């Protein structure tokens, strides 16, 4: 298993909220393997202060981990994003992290995915949604 703490050992918990991105949807019409769709799907928008704590800059790869799976995506600084949260376009990548709540709403937790985020040296890879 890769070092969950990344090269400098930092990691932190954040809550992911997924959202709709029309440009990602448009790219999907060309096929889910299209580079445009992959590029638009493999991002997480984070607060600049959280990125500073992790020691990363824009477009740095980060590993997002839950008990259900892990994905590597690129971090994007978002001035509108609060500390402790992250925003991802709804995609097979976010779906690999999401769980289903059979108790309260009987809904997937797309708007509240609790992950651990850590810097990584790995590359974003479209096969990781398998």
């Amino acid at each position, binding site marked *: 298993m890769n070092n969950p703490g990344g090269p400098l050992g930092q990691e932190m918990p954040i*809550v992911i*909220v997924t*959202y*709709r*991105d*029309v*440009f990602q*949807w*448009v790219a999907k*019409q*060309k*096929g*889910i393997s299209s580079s445009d769709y992959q590029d638009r799907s493999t991002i997480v928008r984070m607060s600049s202060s959280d990125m500073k704590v992790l020691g990363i800059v824009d477009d740095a790869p980060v590993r997002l981990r839950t008990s*259900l*799976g892990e994905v590597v995506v690129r971090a994007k600084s*978002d*001035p*509108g*994003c*609060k500390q402790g*949260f992250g*925003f991802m376009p*709804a995609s*097979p990548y976010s*779906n*690999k992290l*999401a*769980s*289903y*709540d*059979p108790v*309260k*709403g*009987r*809904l*997937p937790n*797309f*708007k*509240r995915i609790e992950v651990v985020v850590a810097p990584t040296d790995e590359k974003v890879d479209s096969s990781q*949604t398998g």
Partner: protein
Amino acid sequence: MGLAQFVCTGCSCLCDDIKIDIEENRIVRIENACIKGTSFLYAGDNFERRAPFLVSGCNVPLEEAIEKAAHLLREAGRPLIFGLDNCTLEAQAMGIALAQALGAVSDDVSSFSHGALVQGILDGDIPTCSFPELKNADLLIYWGCNPYHSHPRHLSKFSYYSHEKWVEAGWVPEVAISCVEVRDTETTSLCNRVFKVEPGGDGDFIGKILAAVGGREDSKESKAFVELTRNSAFGVIFVGLGLIYALDNDLSLFTEMLSELNRWTRFAVIPMIGHFNTLGFNRSLYEKTGYINKVSFAAGISHGDEFSFLEQTRNRVPDCVLIAGSDPFSSQPRSLMRNLEGVPIICLDPFVTSTTMAAEVVFGTAISGLETDGKAVRMDGTVVSLLRGRTPEIPSDEEILSQLLDRIS
């Protein structure tokens, strides 16, 4: 062929002013469609994107696919028919009839999206209105949705920018626009007043609004929301999945808030539904069973959460699943969809999707609207007639489901 006017089925706005120019069966020009509709329509011309007829991953003639699918359905002890959300009313009727003939479970995406809201509207507990009535609204609230990305022409064709009254100088429509959101979006940039909530905090916010109405809460935001509504004669709330998910699918607090607001102002709700005909399925199943989703025909008509697609999948119940007009392998948690590994899946879709790739039998069908006639129900409840733009030699969802019904009857 000159520019024909037709209805786009890219989302539940069902824009009916789309013009397409088709030459030699290919679209050469589109007018009025948004980027979503345009990309969707042009994708229909991409041969590599169109789903074929497949059995076990091999191209087969249609008849062989029909035979195999019928065999799987006949042999199934616990069949499930899911989706039909991107199908015409006519295809949905066939799908429901097929479910009934099989004694199958019937469910659609509304069980994990706008179902509770639609049920409330159909039961008369939640007031709604039609798009033409929006010209009389003086307050528009987008709650938990960003129409710029989900329904790109919503603001321009139906709500804000299409408003009849504009301020005297002609700068902006004479209607207040507000939103309740967890992050900065294009919609928040447009709004006169933005109510920012924490992710999952919509319930708390509604609680404070109700307390503010009763004079028991003095937070600035809740009082501002109440004042905004008190200054309105007719407000409309467009509800997105952000609100539904934040409330864990329990709309009781939201319904209570609506009742309060409607004591001094007319307030209506329109669900910002994604698929073009989810509301059509909900209505059709409601008319047949009294329920909009999560129905089992195994022993008469039964209804309950145990019959939702996600619960059925979680509990590994179905031994055969027919999925039409939906792509759950793309949109649902991977950890849940893994439970369908080994379960034979029959999939009807015009396009290659993650779900067609998981299916044992695939029917590449005609694109509803562009390539079929039929009817659909817009997000405001209006029935819209679809007039095909071209006639490919591809069967429609309705034709496939009808053939399956004949085979298993």
